[in-house]
């Protein structure tokens, strides 16, 4: 009987120890789960904050860039939607040319800044209603290099891109452009694209000093300037996808009297 009782006591003690250990294990596992849950929740929250911050930065950048473009334009009395149209044309040309979506989107933001150098051109020259003298033309043409200098010191990829655009948007494919007179594919694709987008829009818009050209007249000029002013590949892209470009023009049409 004694032996039996001893055994029972021992087993009871084991049972008790076992229960204690398992309870502790269960508590630990529950705690671990809780820590994981807590961390997951926090991480998701922090991720949300990160995304919101990223969006904020991107929006700020877009706004700054757009405002810079608008400043360049407003100083030379361009109409309000010119910036938007040049942006859209540039992106479309970039995509058809084969740049990826991200680069095309960047160019869309950078190309409207092409004339930012005009902020440094004296009003008397910039807004002269009559034809420029040779001297004034030289001053006017410095806006490309001025823009390049203004934006070129930035380390931001977008502003670097914009500095290329500013520098090279008046270069011509045959080497007769300015400021450097570089030729063909020595002109960066960003410059070649913006040149076409800017000219297409300028010719098709009413200005203080001129009426908008008829489409046929623009198309004739573009065909003549294929390989001269403009990259032949971009001209082909333009005519192959003419409807897309015209629908952008319709979408951002200038309202009469709007500035």
């Amino acid at each position: 009987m004694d032996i039996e009782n001893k055994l029972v006591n021992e087993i009871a003690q084991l049972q008790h120890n076992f229960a204690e250990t398992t309870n502790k294990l269960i508590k630990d596992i529950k705690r671990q789960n809780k820590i994981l849950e807590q961390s997951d929740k926090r991480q998701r929250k922090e991720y949300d904050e990160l995304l919101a911050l990223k969006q904020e930065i991107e929006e700020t950048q877009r706004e700054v860039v757009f405002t810079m473009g608008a400043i360049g334009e407003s100083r030379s009395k361009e109409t309000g939607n010119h910036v938007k149209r040049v942006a859209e044309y540039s992106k479309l040309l970039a995509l058809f040319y084969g740049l990826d979506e991200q680069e095309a989107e960047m160019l869309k933001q950078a190309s409207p800044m092409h004339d930012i150098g005009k902020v440094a051109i004296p009003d008397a020259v910039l807004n002269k209603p009559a034809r420029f003298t040779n001297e004034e033309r030289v001053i006017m043409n410095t806006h490309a290099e001025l823009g390049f200098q203004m934006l070129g010191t930035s380390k931001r990829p977008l502003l670097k891109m914009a500095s290329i655009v500013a520098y090279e948007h008046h270069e011509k494919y045959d080497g007769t452009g300015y400021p450097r007179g570089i030729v063909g594919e020595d002109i960066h694709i960003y410059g070649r694209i913006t040149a076409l987008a800017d000219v297409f829009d300028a010719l098709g818009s009413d200005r203080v000093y001129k009426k908008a050209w008829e489409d046929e007249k623009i198309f004739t000029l573009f065909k003549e300037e294929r390989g001269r002013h403009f990259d032949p590949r971009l001209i082909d892209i333009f005519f192959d996808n003419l409807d897309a470009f015209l629908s952008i023009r319709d979408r951002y049409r200038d309202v009469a009297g709007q500035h």
Partner: protein
Amino acid sequence: MQNMKIEETKYTPAIELDASGAITIVGKSYPENTFEFYAPVMKWVESYFESGAKKLAVNMEIVYFNSSSSKLFFDLFDLLEENNNPELIVNWIYDAENESAMEAGEDFKEDFEKLQFNLKAK
């Protein structure tokens, strides 16, 4: 008992251990090796109670922390609960806008029923 002070870094909080009965931990907690980093703190708390001291106010204001810090805080509160007494209080301080800091505090409070665990929104 000696006072102890650990300066804040980019990844770790400012810590003050005052032998007159106060602990403050303020900042974020992303140490490279969490348990190594807090080892002196845990040791200090252990010897504080071993010395027979009772009164202790623990003020924690942690903005961001990683999972191993969370585990470490559980361990710390375990240690406090083992030495629980009427003069021991924990204040979990958080910015009213920092929802996750608040929720973490609620979780701790829930787990350590015996402790005087106060949630204080700033």
